[in-house]
C-alpha cells in the first residue's frame, strides 16, 4: 500500500501518544478508518457523534491526556458541536477530527458539506483546515500542543477526504518539542500575595477547575496544609484537595454548601486558584465576598478580572505558582476565624437533613460505600448532579466528573465510557436522572458491545427535577413541560441493550440491589425510583447573593 494522507494522520496521532479514538464513520472518514485498523490505536464505535465527543471529554477528564474524537462531515460534525462546547466550557484538552468533503467541492453545498470550522469557532481554542497533504503532520502536532497547553481546551482539525486519500512521501520527522515553558508568574507579585495572605485575619482559598487541569492537586493540598487556611471549591474544583480534608468547607455557588458561601462572604482575603468566578459560583456579583481583598492566579490572562475586580492578579502556571508561594507563607493560628467557622459548621449542619439531598443523597452515599475507593463518579446534569457533587467524597483528583460550565444533559453515559477506557483499572459509575439518561441512551449499546463494566444509576423521579423545583419555588408551582411520566420501562430498555438491570424503590432499602450492582462483573443499571417532590437544598434564587440561600419550601 502506498502512503497516503490518512497514514500520516495515524502516524502523527501515535507520536502524540494517542491510544483511543471515539468516533463514528461516514463516507469521508473512510480513508482514515481504513488506515487506523492496522494501527495500535483503538477506535471505539459510538452510537452518536455527540457521544463520541463526550467520551473523548470523559477520557481526558479521567486521565489528564488529550481526548480524541472523530466524525464525518456534515451531520456527523454538527452532532459533535454540543460535545465540543461542553469541553470548551470546562477547558478539557481535546482534539476533534472532522472529515470534510473533497476540496474541489467546497462551497458548492455538496452532500454532507458544512462549514464546521465556522460553526465551532466560538467553542474551540483554535481550528485547522488541512489544505495540503504536507500540512497534515504539522496541523495535528500544533492541535495537540494547543489543546494540552496553557488553559487547555478543544481544538478542531477539519480534513478533506481527498487529502486523506492523497498519496504522499515521507514526512519530516517530529522535532523533539521543547518542554513547554511553565512560568510561575511575576515573583514580586507572588511575594505580595504571600504577604497579603499572611497578614489576613479571615482568609479563604477558592479552588477552581484549573487546579486539576494544571496538575496541581498535590501542590494545592500541600499549600492548604502549610498555610493552615480553610478552602472552598467551585463545582469544577471539587476533589482537587480531598473532600475529607479538614480545611474543606464545601463548594460555593447556586447549589453550594451554605458554610462555604457564608465563609467566603465574611472573608477578608481570598486566594483564587484557577477559577474565572462564573455567576454560577458567585451568584449576585456585586455582593460576592464584599469584604475581601482578592488575589487571583490563572494561566489564562483573559480569566483574570473577567467577572470580578481583582486586587492581586497573577498570570502563571498554577503548579509553579503554588511551588513559589509555599515557602513564603507564614502559617498562623487564626483562633477567632477558626472558631467562627467551627460554630457556623455546627449550626448550619443541623439545618439540613441528609445534607439537603434527601433520599438520593442516601442512595449515593450507599453506592459509594459499596464501590472501591478509587471509583470515578460521572454525574449528569440536573438534581442528580447536585445530589452527586454534594454527596460523593472525592478521595483523589479525577474521581468526580461533571459538565459544570455547559451543563450538558446526557453527558454522563458517554463520558463514563471515555473515563473507563482511559482508566481501565478504576471502577466507573454514571449517575444520571431519567431526563438526561434519555438524551444519550443510545450509548448503552456502546457499553454493551464493548462489555465495559460501567455501573449506571438512573435516579428516576418521572420529572425534570430541577425544572420542577424551580417552577415550584419561583413560578408558584405552575408545573409545565417538566413531567416525563412513567410509561417507559427503563429497566427493560437497558435489558434490551443487553445490560443487566433492576429497579429499586427508595422507600425500600436499596442496599441489596446496590451490592448486586457493585459485584456484577459487567455493566449494570440500577433504576432508583425517588419522590418527585424531593429537591435539592439549599438553592439561591435567581438574582440573589450567595448568602440568601433557601433551605426549604
Amino acid at each position, binding site marked *: 500500500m502506498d502512503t497516503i494522507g490518512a497514514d500520516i494522520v495515524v502516524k502523527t496521532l501515535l507520536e502524540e501518544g494517542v491510544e483511543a479514538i471515539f468516533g463514528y464513520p461516514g463516507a469521508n472518514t473512510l480513508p482514515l478508518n481504513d488506515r487506523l485498523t492496522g494501527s495500535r490505536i483503538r477506535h471505539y464505535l459510538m452510537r452518536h457523534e455527540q457521544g463520541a465527543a463526550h467520551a473523548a471529554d470523559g477520557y481526558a477528564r479521567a486521565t489528564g491526556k488529550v481526548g480524541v474524537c472523530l466524525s464525518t462531515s456534515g451531520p456527523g460534525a454538527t452532532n459533535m458541536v454540543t460535545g465540543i462546547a461542553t469541553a470548551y466550557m470546562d477547558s478539557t484538552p481535546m482534539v476533534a477530527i472532522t472529515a470534510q468533503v473533497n476540496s474541489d467541492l467546497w462551497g458548492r453545498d455538496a452532500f454532507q458539506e458544512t462549514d464546521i*470550522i*465556522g460553526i465551532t*469557532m*466560538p467553542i474551540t*481554542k*483554535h481550528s485547522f*483546515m488541512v489544505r495540503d497533504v504536507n500540512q497534515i503532520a504539522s496541523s495535528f502536532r*500544533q492541535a495537540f500542543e*494547543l489543546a494540552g497547553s496553557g488553559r487547555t481546551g478543544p481544538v478542531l482539525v477539519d480534513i478533506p477526504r481527498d487529502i486523506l486519500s492523497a498519496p504522499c512521501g515521507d514526512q519530516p520527522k517530529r522535532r523533539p518539542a521543547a518542554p513547554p515553558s511553565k512560568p510561575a508568574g511575576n515573583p514580586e507579585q507572588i511575594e505580595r500575595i504571600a504577604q497579603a495572605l499572611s497578614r489576613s485575619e479571615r482568609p479563604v482559598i477558592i479552588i477552581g477547575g484549573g487546579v486539576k487541569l494544571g496538575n496541581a492537586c498535590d501542590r494545592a493540598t500541600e499549600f492548604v496544609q502549610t498555610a493552615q487556611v480553610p478552602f472552598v471549591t467551585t463545582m469544577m474544583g471539587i476533589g482537587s484537595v480531598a473532600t475529607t480534608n479538614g480545611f474543606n468547607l464545601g463548594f460555593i455557588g447556586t447549589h453550594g454548601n451554605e458554610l462555604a458561601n457564608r465563609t467566603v462572604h465574611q472573608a477578608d482575603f481570598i486566594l483564587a486558584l484557577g477559577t474565572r468566578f462564573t455567576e454560577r459560583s458567585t451568584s449576585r456579583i456585586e455582593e460576592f465576598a464584599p469584604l475581601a481583598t482578592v488575589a487571583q492566579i490563572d494561566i*489564562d*490572562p*483573559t480569566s483574570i*478580572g*473577567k467577572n470580578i475586580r481583582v486586587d492581586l492578579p497573577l498570570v502563571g502556571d498554577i503548579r509553579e505558582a503554588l511551588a513559589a508561594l509555599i515557602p513564603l507563607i507564614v502559617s498562623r493560628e487564626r483562633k477567632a476565624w477558626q472558631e467562627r467557622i467551627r460554630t457556623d459548621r455546627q449550626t448550619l449542619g443541623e439545618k439540613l437533613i441528609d445534607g439537603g439531598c434527601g433520599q438520593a443523597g442516601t442512595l449515593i452515599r450507599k453506592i459509594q460505600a459499596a464501590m472501591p475507593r478509587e471509583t470515578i463518579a460521572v454525574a449528569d446534569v440536573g438534581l442528580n448532579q447536585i445530589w452527586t457533587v454534594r454527596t460523593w467524597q472525592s478521595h483523589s483528583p479525577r474521581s468526580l466528573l461533571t459538565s459544570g460550565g455547559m451543563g450538558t444533559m446526557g453527558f454522563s453515559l458517554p463520558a463514563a465510557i471515555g473515563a473507563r477506557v482511559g482508566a481501565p483499572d478504576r471502577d466507573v459509575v454514571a449517575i444520571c436522572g431519567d431526563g438526561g439518561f434519555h438524551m444519550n441512551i443510545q450509548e448503552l449499546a456502546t457499553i454493551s458491545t464493548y462489555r465495559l463494566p460501567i455501573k449506571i444509576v438512573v435516579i428516576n423521579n418521572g420529572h425534570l427535577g430541577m425544572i420542577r423545583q424551580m417552577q415550584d419555588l419561583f413560578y408558584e408551582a405552575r408545573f409545565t413541560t417538566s413531567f416525563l411520566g412513567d410509561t417507559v420501562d427503563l429497566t427493560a430498555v437497558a435489558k434490551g441493550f443487553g445490560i443487566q438491570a433492576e429497579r429499586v424503590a427508595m422507600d425500600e432499602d436499596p442496599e441489596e440491589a446496590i451490592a448486586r450492582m457493585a459485584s456484577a462483573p459487567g455493566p449494570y443499571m440500577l433504576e432508583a425510583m425517588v419522590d418527585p417532590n424531593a429537591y435539592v437544598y439549599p438553592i439561591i434564587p435567581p438574582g440573589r447573593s450567595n448568602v440568601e440561600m433557601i433551605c426549604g419550601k
Partner: protein
Amino acid sequence: MAIEERTISMLVNNQPGVLSRIAGVFSSRGYNIRSLCVAETINPEVSRITLTSRAESDFTEKIKKQLDKLVDIISVTDFTGAPSVQRELMLVSLLLTVENRREVLRAVDLFGCRVVTMSEDHLILEITANKDKTAAILKYFEPFGVEEMNRTGAIAVFRQKREG
C-alpha cells in the same frame, strides 16, 4: 465606564478565516466594529488589520487579552491616545449646479481636496485626512448634494521617537 473610540492595529497571519476569528471576539462581546482596514505588509505572509470600535474604557485590556489568545495574531497594538499619525481616504461624488459650482470649488481649494474627475454637472473628490477632518469636510459638502461617499477607515503609524 466612559465610552470612547478605540483604534487597534494587529499583525496577523495572512490566512483564510483569521478576520472571521477577530470579528468573533468583538461580536460575541457585543462590540461593533466601526471601521476596518486589511492589507498585506512587506512580508506577504503577514497582514495588518486596523480597526476602530467604540467601547468602554476597560475595552483595551479585555479585548486585547482575548485577541492575544488567537493563534493567528502576531501582535496587537492600541493606538488610542498614543502619539500617532492616523489617516483615512474618502471619495466623495458631488452634484454640480450653476448655483453651487463656485462655492464648491472654493471649498475644494480651501480644504486641500484632490479633484479626481470633473464634468459639467459632476465632481469626484479624494480626501486624505484624519477622521475628524474627513468628517468635517463631508459635513460641509453634504448640503450641496453628495451623490455617493466611500471611505477606507483609519490606518495608523506611531510617531517615531527620535533618539539623541
